[in-house]
């Protein structure tokens, strides 16, 4: 599974990418919404995009809308520092997944597995 991680917290997103790679996923990172959008516009394709909701410039919600227009097959998972509380509104599909920061890696893997349609198993590290 090819995953794009977009968050302005650079160290966090790099660390998360490494952990996903350890679990056999192909994880790529962008540090801004603008950069991620440009990559999609250039033709790069990912199965799932993991987006931070609150970012300077293009936020996660807007980014999802614009990326979805370019690649309708792409799946999205949102990360938020607001925990389970959303004090913003989303004009997107309500079926989208949300995960609060700090993340539990198992929950993220489970979510990705579900999105990958079918039991495309993501292996435990070391297995």
């Amino acid at each position, binding site marked *: 599974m090819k995953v794009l991680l977009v968050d302005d*917290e650079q160290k966090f997103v790099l660390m998360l990418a490494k952990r996903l790679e350890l679990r056999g996923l192909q994880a790529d990172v962008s540090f801004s919404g603008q950069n991620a959008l440009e990559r999609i516009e250039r033709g790069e394709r990912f199965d799932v995009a993991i987006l931070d909701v609150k970012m300077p410039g293009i936020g996660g919600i807007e980014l999802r809308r614009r990326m979805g227009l370019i690649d309708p097959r792409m799946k999205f998972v949102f990360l938020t520092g607001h925990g389970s509380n959303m004090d913003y509104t989303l004009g997107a599909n309500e079926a989208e997944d949300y995960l609060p920061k700090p993340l539990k890696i198992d929950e993220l893997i489970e979510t990705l597995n579900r999105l990958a349609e079918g039991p495309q198993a993501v292996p435990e590290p070391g297995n």
Partner: protein
Amino acid sequence: MTQSPNSLLSSIWPQFSRNGEEHLNPYYTFQDYRQTWGMTIFILMTTALLPLIVMALIYYQLTETSINTEALLRTERLASNTRRAVTFFLEERLAALTFTVNEMGYDRLTRPGVLSEVLRNLKLGFGGLTDLSVMADNGTQVAYAGPFNLEGKDYSDQPWFMECQQHDACVSEIFSGYRDVPHIVVAVKSKRPDGHFFVLRATLETERLIQTLSAFKTGEHADIFLINRDGLLQTPSQFYADPSRHVSLSVPAYSDRTKAVLSSDRSGLPIIVGYAFIDTKIAPTGFILMVVKQKASMMKVWLDLRSDINWFLAISAASIAIVITLTSTVMVNRIFHADREKAKTMALAEQNCQLASIGQLAAGVAHEINNPLALINETAGYVKDLFLIKEQYKEDTELVEHIDTIIEAVERCGTITRQLLGFARRFDIQTQSIDLKEMVTDVINFHKKEAEYRNIAISVDIPETIPLIETDRGKLQQIILNLVNNAFQAINNGCILDIRAEMDGPEQVRLFIRDNGCGISEEHLGKVFEPFFTTKKEGQGTGLGLSITYGLVQKLHGNIAVQSKTGEGTTFVVTLPVQTKKEIQA
């Protein structure tokens, strides 16, 4: 039962207790409920009792005047009737004497036995005569008929004889004379053929006259008597005689008509005096008829009625006073309690606002902490991943335990931040359809009494064309309440507050809240939405009201602007979307 004296006291003197509730004071409609209560009672009492008392006084005045007039007329009528009776008594006897002298002449009357015959006839005809005598023009009595032997007596120095010399007839005052018995002398003068005059004189018993006067007496306190022109009593007076036998009242001035006047006796009691100067057609007299009545006895009926009316008035006034006091106490107490509830609600609303802002702060802090926590979590997680993957660490369970401790600590911090965010979530948006006009009216109702009290005119102009707004009821209510509160605090009594709404395109509605109060200076205008900014004295305002309002409007995806000019007033413009997008629930 033991509480009843207290409850009775509180119905008369209510407490309006605000013990320990000083923080609610700014929200009360009236600041001094005791004064409001006192004013209410005073105004109601004045309105109810003043007309009653004025009407009673006017009634007293009119009735007393009419009864006085009636009493004067009655006394005058009595005096007039009595005068006629006394005059008739004297005239009748004078006429009989005149007839006798003219009919019989001097020679016949002086013959022995004739005068006795005449006296007998007169006694038969009129009564009241004691004796009869004929005087020569030198005052010597020449013939006498009667019980005393007074023949030859000289009457030339008697006042009545001297008067008779001047007039054709005379009536004496009541005097004792030679016989030492009170009597009246009536006499008529006639001429003899030789040109000399003679006088026929009769003595009248005073008893008959006194009886005549007594016949007219009505009531215990009425007194009828005769005096001469010097005030000497001619007939006995029951109440108004002094030791020198003079009347104790002042002698009235001469009048040819019967009169009645209001006066007072020696002890100051009001009396009504009717009087008449007695003159007969044949001869003048020195008598003055006095009819004296005590005013109190004549006014007794009225005084009794007035006493009844006074009692009725006093009982009515007391009942009205009790009812007004109790009603005012109940009403003002109810207003006070309703106001206290309102004040509590408003204080709670403001407290909620403060809590909401604390919630926002907590959410902000939690969000900021979550990012570094996430980094620690991922870093520790990555290290743990490495330990689990790399062969050389696989056996070192202690290292993995240390990492797990870090991850657990992060998790605990995450729980805390989630709880903080959960606290903020209580203030999240819950949308529903709102009728803006209805909501503004509801909020205005909160301030209706205060507006009436302070004479503030509130006009609401929200056209029917404004659609239902999809938004959070509580927050919108809070926004309007805060802005109206703010306006009420800014304006003086007698100012206006104008609330109107209009559409701003098809998707937004604009609400204007305008006052003509003191306005906001230009230097302060940019800071009004800043937290803790206030122009009020320390302790009177938190400076959070408009800042919270700003936050709430933002939450509803609207915006708020302010326009103001010092001395002219302030307008807050709140723009809200007609449809608020639905809150995302995680």
